[in-house]
Each structure stands twice: as C-alpha cells, then as structure tokens.
C-alpha cells in the first residue's frame, strides 16, 4: 500500500491492537512522509526529538488551517512559549518543585494504600477487568484528591472527559466538525464545574490544587478564571486518561511476557526500569500534532508554515536507529531515553505522578499475577488512536493450588 495513506491506516480502528508494523513501514518510508491530504507524518526518533525541541514548531492548534481549530484559547498543553511557560509555571507552583517539592512524594503512601484497597475488593473474584476494576479507578481517585474534586462526581466528568479526548484525536477519515463542537462544549462545561469547585474554596482552602489556585495571594501569580478553568480541565483529564493506559498496558505486556513477569516478581527493584521500558514499548500517548511557524526544512523535505505534522512518538520509541532490538520488551534496558512522556518544553507535566502511580499499581499487582491469564488477546481497544489503550482487559485469576 502507498505510504501516503499511513496516517489513515494507523488511525483505522482495525489496526488499533497492533499499529507497530505500520510504524515500521512509516520509518521505512522516510523520516518525513507526506500524506494524501497534504499533512506530514514523522516516525523516526531523531527527527521527532529534533521537532519537539524546535522553537519554530507550534503546538497551538490555532496555527493550523480550518475554522473549528480557531475557536478557543487552548490549555498550556497546546500553547507555545512564552504563554505556555507562564501558565505551566503557575500550574506547577502547587504541584512540584521549586515551590512544592514534596507534594507528589508525600502522596506515595496514599497511593499505595488506595492500590491495596482496590485489590482487596477484587480478592475473591475469578475474573476481573483490569481497566474498570483497577487501572481506571486508581488514577481518577488520585487526581480527584490532588485537585480537590469530589470522587462521586466521576460519572459527570467522565462524560465531559470522553468528549474532550475524542475531539483531540487524529481522525483523517472523519469530518470532525461535530466532534470538535462537542469537545469545545464539554471543555466549557467542565471548566465551569471546576471553577465552581474552586470558588467554594475561596477563603476556605483545603489541601488541594484548586484551593491553591484560587487563594493565590499574589495577583501576578494568580490564574484568571478562564485560565483556572482550562488548566483544571487539562489536569483532570490528563491525570487519568493516560495513566489508565500505562497501568493497563503494563499488565497486558507482562502477561504476554511471563518470563519477564517472573523475573520482576523475584527482583522488585527492577520495577522502576520496567516502567520506563513500558513507557517506551507500549506508551499511553502515541501521537502528537504540531505545525511549523515558518516554512521549514525537515530532513530534506520543505514543509510549509501551517501544515499539520503528526509526530508518531510510539514509532520513535521503536526506532532501531535509536534503540537496540527495539521490538523486544526488556525491563533491564539501559540508555532508555524514550518518548513516552514526550520531550522538549511540553515534556509531561504529570510524569512524576504517573511514575509513582505505575510503580504502586504494578508493584502491588505483580505478586498477584502468577496464576493470571489473559481472557482475550488482543483485548478490545478504545477508539482513540492518539491516547491508545485497551477499553477492557479481562483477566482470569486462577487460584493456585
């Protein structure tokens, strides 16, 4: 098949369970591959990192053509510096160093406790769904506590979150006008909801990020209501839509590699490196979209300003020019500078939290997986190609004799 249909084929739901042969085809076709619709697809590690670091590349969808993209100012995930830097720095104040260096670390105990609670409830079940019973509830509960969102509102924001995430997907096969409209509306509704929660904490701070945002005494460091709403939506969605994939992909990968599962059971100290390898081998985020701010030469191809360029991070993670034996899952891998959290100025804001969650979740699960078996392989996947992961992961917990 022709290389100019690669993005269409990668995003085709039929290929969701295993897009990796398509990524190999993409890297084979060249570092920069033009698609039939005039957009470009990049799948090689060195070109992707170069583009992620390039200050002439924009993450702002308003720099792409098309009326739907122009609608609203996006959150900092899709803004460029200096505005991105300003908002990300403000959002970081109650979350990480230098102002809150201990915040995430002190949640370690809570996260471990929560993990044990969830697993205790599943103890006697012969079959569980890793996604619905474990990998989804864990990060949702954590991000709710961190932000200050009532856990019982989950059905409410789950719907908004689904709409926002669907509208952010790459769908070359669809007219996405309707989806984009629904996504924008969900962002507005979810933002109002979070702003409301923050307002309730004005003057009565509880120990969470919404309280910190709304009660910031220095006007120069305060988010405007719109910024608070957008940032809250971003953090709430990013805080759970990605970690669920990391944990689920972890279980799936380990059950597919029983030798490595055995090894990790015997050597729990390997777990942090195994999580890094998972972020390379089965990353939660497969693609990001960018556009050049000026006409630009990329690896010998001139790409016009405003052209959509999709960076296939998951393909870069399997690039043999960067990783030795890239299709092998090797929890002891050295020199593993993967693109699982992206790279450059947009390097995942929540990475430290995601790592702690994955360590806690997989660390607690691994001893219990010795008799587990995948019920369905491959499992059913979610529609989303950008945030790729199983929708369900049923596993049978056979009782050991």
């Amino acid at each position, binding site marked *: 098949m022709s290389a100019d249909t690669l993005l269409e084929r990668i995003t085709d739901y039929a290929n969701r369970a295993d897009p990796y042969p398509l990524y190999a085809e993409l890297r084979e076709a060249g570092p920069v591959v033009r698609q039939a619709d005039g957009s470009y697809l990049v799948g090689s590690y060195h070109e992707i990192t170069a583009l992620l670091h390039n200050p002439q590349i*924009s993450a702002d969808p308003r720099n792409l053509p098309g009326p739907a993209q122009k609608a609203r100012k996006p959150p900092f995930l899709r803004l460029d510096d*200096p505005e991105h830097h300003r908002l990300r720095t403000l959002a970081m104040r109650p979350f990480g160093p230098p102002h809150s260096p201990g915040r995430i670390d002190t949640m370690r105990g809570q996260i471990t406790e929560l993990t044990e609670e969830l697993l205790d409830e599943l103890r006697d079940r012969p079959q569980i769904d890793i996604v619905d019973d474990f990998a989804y509830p864990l990060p949702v509960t954590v991000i709710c506590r961190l932000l200050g969102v009532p856990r019982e509102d989950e059905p409410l924001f789950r719907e908004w979150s689904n709409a926002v995430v669907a509208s952010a997907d790459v769908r070359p096969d669809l007219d996405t006008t309707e989806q984009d409209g629904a996504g924008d509306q969900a962002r507005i509704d979810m933002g109002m909801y979070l702003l409301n929660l923050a307002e309730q904490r004005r003057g009565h701070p509880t120990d969470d990020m919404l309280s910190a945002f709304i009660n910031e005494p220095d006007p120069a460091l305060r988010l405007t209501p719109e910024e608070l709403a957008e940032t809250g939506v971003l953090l709430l969605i990013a805080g759970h839509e990605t970690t669920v994939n990391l944990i689920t992909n972890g279980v799936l990968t380990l059950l597919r590699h029983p030798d490595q599962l055995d090894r990790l059971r015997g050597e729990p100290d390997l777990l942090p490196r195994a999580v890094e390898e998972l972020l390379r081998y089965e990353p939660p985020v497969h693609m990001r979209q960018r556009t050049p701010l000026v006409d630009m030469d990329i690896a010998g191809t001139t790409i016009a300003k405003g052209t959509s360029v999709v960076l296939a991070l998951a393909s870069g993670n399997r690039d043999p020019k960067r990783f030795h034996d890239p299709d092998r899952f090797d929890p002891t891998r050295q020199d593993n500078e993967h693109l699982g959290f992206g790279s450059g100025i947009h390097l995942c804001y929540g990475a430290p939290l995601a790592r702690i969650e994955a360590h806690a979740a997989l660390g607690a699960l691994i001893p219990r997986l010795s008799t587990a078996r995948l019920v369905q392989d491959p499992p059913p996947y979610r529609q989303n190609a950008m945030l790729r992961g199983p929708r369900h992961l049923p596993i049978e917990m056979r009782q050991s004799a």
Partner: protein
Amino acid sequence: MTGDLRDGRIVIVGASLAGLRAAETLREEGFTGSLTVVGDEPYPPYDRPPLSKQVLLGQVAADTTGLPMRRNPDAEWRLGVRASGLDGIGKRVMLADGESLPFDRLLIATGTRARPWPNPDEAALDGVFTLRTRDDAAGLAERLAAGPQRVLVIGGGFTGSEIASACRERGIEVTLAERGPAPLVGALGGTLSKLAAAMHRNHGVDLRCGVTVTALRGDSGGRFTGAELSDGSRVEADVCVVALGAVRNVEWLAEAGLAAGPRGVTCDAGCRAFDMYGIVTDDVFVAGDVSRFPHPLFDYQLLSLEHWGNAVAQAEVAAHNMVNRGPLRRPHLALPTFWSTQFGLNIKSVGVPTFSDHVAIAQGSLEERRLAMVYGYRGRVTAAVTVDMAKSLEYYRHLIETAAPFPPAPGAADRPMAAEIPVPSDVPDPKGLSHGPTVALTGHLPDRRLTVIQPSG
C-alpha cells in the same frame, strides 16, 4: 601489547568524579584485574558543584555531598596520599609516602586545585579562603553562618559569582572585585556579562569591575581585615574568598616525559596521553579537568574544560578504551556543557561560547531574564547559553552538532520579531581577567566532524 585487556593492573590517580566514574565503567566493561584508586584528599569521591551553592547556603553540610556509586568498583582505595611521580618506563606511580604502585595501564585524573592568592603571607591570614574542596567549603560555610560584616570575593567567574549570590541570599554584605569589565565576561562574552552585572547589583552586591586587589590586610592577630584595590580604595571585610580560577595538578608528572603543562595533560580523542615528543602512549590515559583534548567541532583545537559533564563522559570513554583495542575504541566527542545557579537564575551552556565571533538572542529577551543566546563563529553555530530556559538547550545542541548556519533561522514562537541582529560576542582575552578561563582553546586544524555514534544497547 599482549594479554587480555580485561585483566592486569590498572591504577587511577585522582579519586574524584572522573576517577570514580572510570573505575565503575572499567568494571561495567568487564575488567576483572586489580584496580587501585589514589586520592590526595582523605575522603571518598564527593560532588563539588554543591560546595559553592547549597553548602554555602547552609542547606546541606559539606560532608554530605558524597558521590553515589553506580556499582561497587571493587577497587583498593589509597586515600589521603598524593601521587608524587610517574615512571613511564618502569610503569610505576610513586606515592608521597614512599611507596610505589606498579601498573599495566594508568589513568591520570588528578583534576585541578584552586589558584592560591599569590602572596603566601596574605593568603595565610585567618578569614582568607579558596573554594575547591570539601574542607574549604566547610570552613567557609562556618564563617558565613557566623554572620560576617562583609565578604570580599576576588574574581567574577562562575565560582566567585555563585559565592557572592550565596552570601546575598544569606543576607551578608558582599564586595566582588573583578579585573575584567563584568562578571562572567570571560565565559559568556559581553552581552550576557552585562546581564550578570545587573543581577549582581540588583541583589545588592557591591560590584567593582576593572579593578584588581593589590593587597590583603590583617590585624596583629593575623586576622583578615580588608583589602587595597588598584583604584586606591579600600574594602573593609572580615572574610575573603579568592576565586581566581584553577591550577591543573600536573606537577607530579614533571619527570614523567608526558605532554603535561599548565593547561593540562594533552591526549588524543581516545584519551591516550601524548608524550613530550607528541607520540601517543598506549598505556597512559587522561580524563577530567586535567586533560587537554582535541575536539573536531572546534577546529580540532585542544580543549581544557572544568566541567562536571566532561569529567563523566571522558572518564567513561577513557575506561572503555583502557579495556578495548584498536577499532573497538571510542572517541571522546561529547559537547561541552555546564550549568550554574546564581541570583535565582539557572544558566546552562552547550558548546564553547568563547569560540565565537557573534551572538544573537534566538528566544526570550534580556528584559524577561529568560532567553536563549546563540553563539556563532564564521557563520556557524558553536555554542548556546540559556537563562532560565534549560529545556531549549537540546535544540541548540543539535544545531552545534550539525554545524548549522549562524544566525539561526528566525521564527521561534517566543521571539516573534526576526531573531535579533547578531552583535559581536565580545569575548575578552582571558589575560585581562581576574580568574582563569574554565574553557581554554589552543591550536588550530580546520576540518569537520566525520563521526556518528550509534547506540549499541
């Protein structure tokens, strides 16, 4: 050479960052022979960057910066004893305690020491410090904690500037005297040195540029009381830190027949030392601050660097080459990088900023105190310095490694106007500065970079 390179006797002289990383790498590469590490300080390897930062701020004690070990290097540690000589023919390292250590292969990683105040009597005054070792830092931190009236810092390089910054952060009055026109001018050139000067003054440093300190004064009890400056003024202070750069520890090699001098021990790209005739040795290797090595990106000039990252990278290459032959050996091509934190700013550099004729601000601005400054030499990018913009550095590293044209193309999101018109980089001759250069370039052989390294695992 005969025998198995993974066996035999290896001696490493220098028990700091480069020595430790080399020892670890030797074992990682499968070296099973005997390994001896000699260090003149009595302490196991420790990290120096915090000594001028967190230690002076009182955040951590000077004896807590020990370097973590990636693995047990299974070495015999000869600490607290100085190497006094090298017999290249008999293949022995002589120690100051009279003993000597036979070796099959040797790694020289003796680094540098602080350049002392030239007048020994004045240098001996109570309250006069240099800052290089853990003991130096402990002594100085104790004085700063006692709340001195004023600290005089001599030399406006990175160390001097960081000391001044730490003092101000602790609320201590500081005078900084620099012979050049501004702090950091020797390392970063004219434009950023003006920003540095503004940062000093905004933070309340009494900055005196274009002056030299002509004499240190003490009272009858031998305590430092102040200094005379070349402009006729006098600074009253009770603590003085001499930050005049570093001296390479090569004296012990005076009779060794190696190409060792004030700028270090010259070696090839594979870290093998040259002898005094310019012939490369097979069994003597060099790494870290004491080395002087050719770099293809900087016209094959010999670089002498005092950079943490270089010590690590070069030690790893040296160790690899000590246990591998011929075509399996690797070149040390790492781009120089360093960082500094001072006055609340994070300054990072990649490439060699002094190897430049022009600079341009590619991102951010001086007014925001957040920027990326790109350095060019004859139309190509040779270095970049970021201020509070560390994540952007990787991009410029790529430009340097690919010899990208200078000035860089305009169009960065955070530099909406065309990139600023390049201005002269204005790097002065280091002879005119108080402190020695942390990067020195010597020699010339124009060519271009031809080697690409692929990962192996």
